[in-house]
């Protein structure tokens, strides 16, 4: 284990950034997100960011390939590029866990999404554990330990005036070795944090929900939802996208862009039929996708309990309250 004095954090990041591009959680123009490190950025280390770090691996808008057309002829060229290695510093355990789910979606079941894969392979994750979860956090109900991120390359957690760092992968070891000049050896174990105060009952939830598709409770739950995409766009595990064309004259770019099951057009077919015509079906899809379908398909939950949707839903349609309400249904 290594330690880093808090006072030296900036120097540490600067040194790391001179070797490899580093993304850090910052407050920028009034909103928090992960952005490239610079000396004058405003670091946010006391709470998680509103924009999830999944954007570094799966950006909202991403070019897929370019094309040229000339009368009847056409050609395409992939725009997938492997980025230089980069470090994501300060990712919270919930968001690290979300990468596990994104890996399952983008890298398994027969097809690998090369655009995601190239970034994922090049990204080194330094997770920052949470000594004290925010009141909207409920990751530990899903089995995430707020102070540990097993999938991270390096686990880091604050302890008084220091940060303690432990490498968990080879890439992590190597990075810490490269930065050894900034670090002090330290004995002992990484400290634990406090549990979350917000809780939901997890055990058996998938089985409980399986027979609830037709339950009238969905007509109740959906009522206040305004079908904006806020909850899905901020969610670290939501991955739905649309594929679109941007044509300018004889050339153009095929790109993808976040989409949301909250929008009516999402499932609207060319002939006019829509399997999810009202907000009841759409809200049901969002919750069952996270709590039943993803567990059925990938044997893990589709929510990591980060609480972003609770914080930012304009009508406080809170997933934990929905889960409680669903538990009450016989």
């Amino acid at each position, binding site marked *: 284990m290594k330690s880093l004095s808090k006072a030296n954090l900036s120097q540490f990041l600067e040194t790391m950034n001179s070797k490899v591009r580093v993304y850090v959680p910052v407050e920028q123009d009034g909103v928090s997100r992960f952005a490239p490190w610079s000396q004058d950025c405003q670091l946010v280390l006391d709470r998680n960011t509103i924009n999830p770090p999944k954007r570094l691996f799966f950006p909202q808008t991403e070019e897929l390939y370019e094309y040229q057309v000339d009368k009847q002829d056409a050609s395409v060229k992939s725009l997938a590029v492997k980025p230089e290695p980069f470090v994501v510093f300060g990712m919270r355990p919930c968001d690290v866990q979300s990468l596990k789910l994104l890996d399952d979606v983008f890298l398994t079941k027969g097809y690998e999404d090369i655009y995601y894969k190239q970034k994922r392979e090049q990204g080194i994750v330094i997770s920052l554990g949470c000594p004290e979860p925010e009141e909207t956090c409920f990751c530990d109900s899903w089995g995430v330990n707020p102070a540990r991120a097993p999938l991270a390359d390096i686990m880091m957690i604050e302890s008084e005036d220091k940060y303690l760092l432990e490498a968990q992968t080879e890439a992590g070891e190597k990075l810490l070795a490269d930065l050894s000049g900034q670090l002090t050896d330290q004995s002992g174990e990484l400290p634990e944090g406090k549990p979350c105060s917000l809780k939901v009952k997890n055990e058996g939830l998938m089985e409980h929900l399986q027979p609830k598709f037709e339950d009238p409770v969905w007509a109740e739950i959906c009522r206040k939802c305004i*079908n904006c995409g806020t909850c899905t766009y901020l969610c670290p595990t939501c991955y739905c996208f649309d594929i679109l064309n941007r044509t300018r004259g004889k050339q153009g770019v095929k790109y993808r862009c*976040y989409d949301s099951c909250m929008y009516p057009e999402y499932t609207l077919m060319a002939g006019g039929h829509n399997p999810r015509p009202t907000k009841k079906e759409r809200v049901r899809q969002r919750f069952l996708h996270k709590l039943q379908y993803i567990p059925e398909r990938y044997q893990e939950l589709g929510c990591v309990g980060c609480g972003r949707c609770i914080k930012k839903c304009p009508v406080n349609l809170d997933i*934990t309250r929905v889960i409680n309400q669903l538990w009450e249904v016989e």
Partner: protein
Amino acid sequence: MNAQTAKIREIAKELLEKQEVQMVIGWEKGTFFYNSTPVFITKPEDVERLIWDEYCAVNLAKLLMDYRHVEGKVALFVKGCDARGINRLIQDKVIDRGKTYLIGLPCPGMKDAGKAAELGKDKAGEAPLEAKCLRCTHPNPVVYDVLVGEEVPVTGKEDRFARIADLEKMSPDEKFEYWSKQYDKCIRCYACRNVCPACNCRECVFDQGQTWLERAVERGGNQFYGLVRAFHVAGRCIECGECERACPMDIPIMDLHHKIAKDINELFGDYEAGLDPEGPLPLGMYKTEDPEEFM
């Protein structure tokens, strides 16, 4: 429980028991002390869920749109801004006044939930009002069937155009820079549109595939979205501030709407939308003496 909460429950219970309405839309307590969230009551025994406190910021008017085709009446609690939202929907022929029962609530102003959350429960009393409430000109409902409690004075608030005075002083380049930074944050979730009582078109231009706007989230498209929406509600925006409150990226959307409202006042005379559902809209008519500065 405050006295008004008791009163609104009583009113709701009576309406439902006598079957004068088939649903009452109000607020109930949400996750944390600073969340009050819309609730839809259909059974008299459920009225105990209703509350009225300093966090009932959500404008309920838009939610009525889901019930415009149902049989019978729906009752709705309205603050000043909800009531103007109702007038907006009536004037735009989206809902039928005859099918709504409005329970007016004079509004002392709602607390800024984000700030209250930061301060914590014990100090929440010190939290400032929601930005939209600081500049509210009509805290008393402008339309209702019954009013609960006494009207409140409009005092101690900011001039509603104060925030844009600084923006107006900027050079065009500075303005561009400022708004670019703001709209670069936009994630195009469309919460601002979906929450807005003036955004009530049957089919929004932004839902017509990529006909009018590409889906790519980038500077030009984001600004186009913000501006087009602002112009689509010009002269109809009731200044309820819901768009800005709903925006997860904290974009100062109201500045656009206030700027347009101010310009309309200067060009066509003082006007506030949603006060009277019958009167002509400033941009929905013309007079021969209208200024032609833009020509």
